[in-house]
């Protein structure tokens, strides 16, 4: 086991230069937003889809587009509207009157990176079609099943301001996203730099530093990253504390949590911690990785009660108390 761990460590170290180049290339276009870029890479390396929440104008679309360009991946932006149909997403069969046959026309979902903008504005059947594709990495059109390209990453956005005429994602569907990120405003220094870059009208070219095959290789390295039993127990303690807080001396949280995190959360947290360790240049995951990524993985998986909402007790505050209480190994 020592040899394998060492080998993985060496592979991670040798891949460090690649990820640094990626950050640098994206940084040419996107100012700041290091947290967002890092989480996008974690999603890409851990094969996990991401839900982005933030007000308009925070470079969400631009960040995703720049990421796609820097890894020479096919990018597709889909604006979700209330009149969207599943066929508009996955494709459909088109009748050809010349030969009387049906031909398959693949939809825009056949891309490496999908940005599903304002996913909560489309009706539930469209959301289901997308989420099925996310889970299975394939779509069925007519009688034929088509595999989606690899890597396949969905980044969905939700606008927290406009809630009228929206179809909120059901909790079971939100659970399929590895992380939910809250994007915040840049600081003054960053915004000044944004002004200076974006007000000249000059387009900044992004050079691909990776390709999709390299991403697949990096994913294999991430999957091999070592995670100790103590760290696994730490992850399980955190997830179990969301389900049974009284077992962890958090009786005050019991009336505030309607549903805790599912076993999928444990899997996602483990994968995300490994990807985080990879980005930090380590061939092993630590409790620090779990702490850094935990809130993003769990905030959308803990369903609060009405009592919690009345007390303005969000899932983030609840998770904060859980992280405070659970002893770090």
């Amino acid at each position, binding site marked *: 086991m020592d040899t394998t*761990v060492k080998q993985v*460590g060496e592979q991670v170290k040798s891949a460090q230069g690649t990820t640094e180049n990626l950050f640098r290339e994206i940084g040419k276009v996107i100012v700041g937003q290091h947290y967002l870029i890092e989480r996008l890479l974690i999603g890409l390396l851990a094969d996990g889809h991401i839900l982005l929440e933030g007000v308009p104008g925070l470079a969400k679309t631009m960040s995703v587009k720049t990421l796609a360009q820097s890894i020479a991946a096919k990018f597709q932006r889909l604006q979700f509207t209330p009149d969207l149909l599943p066929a508009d997403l996955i494709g459909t069969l088109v009748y050809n009157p010349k030969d009387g046959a049906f031909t398959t026309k693949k939809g825009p979902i056949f891309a490496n990176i999908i940005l599903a903008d304002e996913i909560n504005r489309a009706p539930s059947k469209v959301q289901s079609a997308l989420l099925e594709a996310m889970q299975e990495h394939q779509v069925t059109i007519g009688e034929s099943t088509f595999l989606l390209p690899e890597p396949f990453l969905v980044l969905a956005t939700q606008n927290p301001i406009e809630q009228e005429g929206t179809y909120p994602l059901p909790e079971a569907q939100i659970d399929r996203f590895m992380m939910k990120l809250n994007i915040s405003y840049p600081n003054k220094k960053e915004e000044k730099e944004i002004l200076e870059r974006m007000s000249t009208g000059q387009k900044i070219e992004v050079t691909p530093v990776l390709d999709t095959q390299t991403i697949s290789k990096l994913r294999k390295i991430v999957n091999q990253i070592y995670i*100790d039993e103590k760290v696994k127990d730490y992850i399980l303690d955190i997830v179990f504390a969301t389900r049974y807080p009284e077992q962890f001396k958090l009786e005050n949280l019991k009336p505030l949590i309607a549903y805790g995190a599912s076993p999928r959360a444990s899997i996602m947290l483990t994968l995300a911690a490994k990807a985080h360790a990879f980005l930090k240049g380590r*061939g092993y995951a630590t409790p*620090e990785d779990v702490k*850094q990524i935990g809130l993003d993985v769990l905030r959308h998986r803990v369903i609060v009660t009405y009592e919690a909402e009345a007390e303005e007790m969000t899932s983030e505050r609840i998770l904060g108390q859980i992280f*405070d209480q659970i002893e770090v*190994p």
Partner: protein
Amino acid sequence: MHLIRRLVLVFSFLFVLLPIKLNAEPPNDTDVQAVPVPTPRLDRVEQPTGTYRVGEMLSYRIHILWPELPENVRMDSPEIQTENLQLEGVRQETNSTAENVLGKGIEQILTFQFLAQKTGKAEISRFSLRWNQGDGAVSSQIEVPAVRITIAPASKPWPVILGLGTGLLGLLFGSITLILNRKNRKRAQVPNPTVLSLEDQFIEDANRLYHTHELKPNPKDFLEGLTRLLLTYVKQKLDWNPSQGGYNTLEKKAGERWSQKEAARLRELLQALEYERFSGTQTSADNVKATYEKTLSFINQRRVI
């Protein structure tokens, strides 16, 4: 909880009445400037040790150092989780003379008194002190180390009576002997309990841990124990909670309170311990000893400072 709130109300009132004055000028009403809030620091603790009896009062003294005390700082209800102990009261003393350890600032000594309720294990598992700036926003927080003690049954009256009776008889006999023999006795000096600094406490605990490891080697357990000791020390010294803040926060706090070099060294130490514990590599006896010595060297240096 109701009792604790009452006690803190009383305590806060006392805090306001203390005649601690600063040299700061009164604020100019026309200028709205942010007043830097001084951060308290846990200097040392005097934990209750040994065995206590049911119904006996035990004290936990906490020494806190303030660089200065501005107005409008209030102490929130302390967060205390106890098992088999009931908080009975809080006393406060201050020492603003030049005789305190750092030569300046103000030392605040809080004495929390607990009543042992029943026999068996008793514990103070979580103990946080918080202060706010008067608007409710928490400005400072200190984590106080946990304590575990044993509560013995309350002594029954008849052995006490018997003992007293025997004692009186003995006293009488001794007095008669004294008068008859005319000999002087020396009274035994009760040694003052030694209060260890956090660094001394760490070194003592680490040495004990290493001795246990030498007798029955178990690198994983030893490194886990050493990490716990170091994290507890850092929690008390830097008000850093490993469950909350990452290493960046720790390094920043250490850099502010100590030096950048020491902050970097502390981070390296914790990351080295992480590597030994979580990287999956077999830890050799030499590595264990080297890690232990590096940790002790760091704490020893802190001791000197």
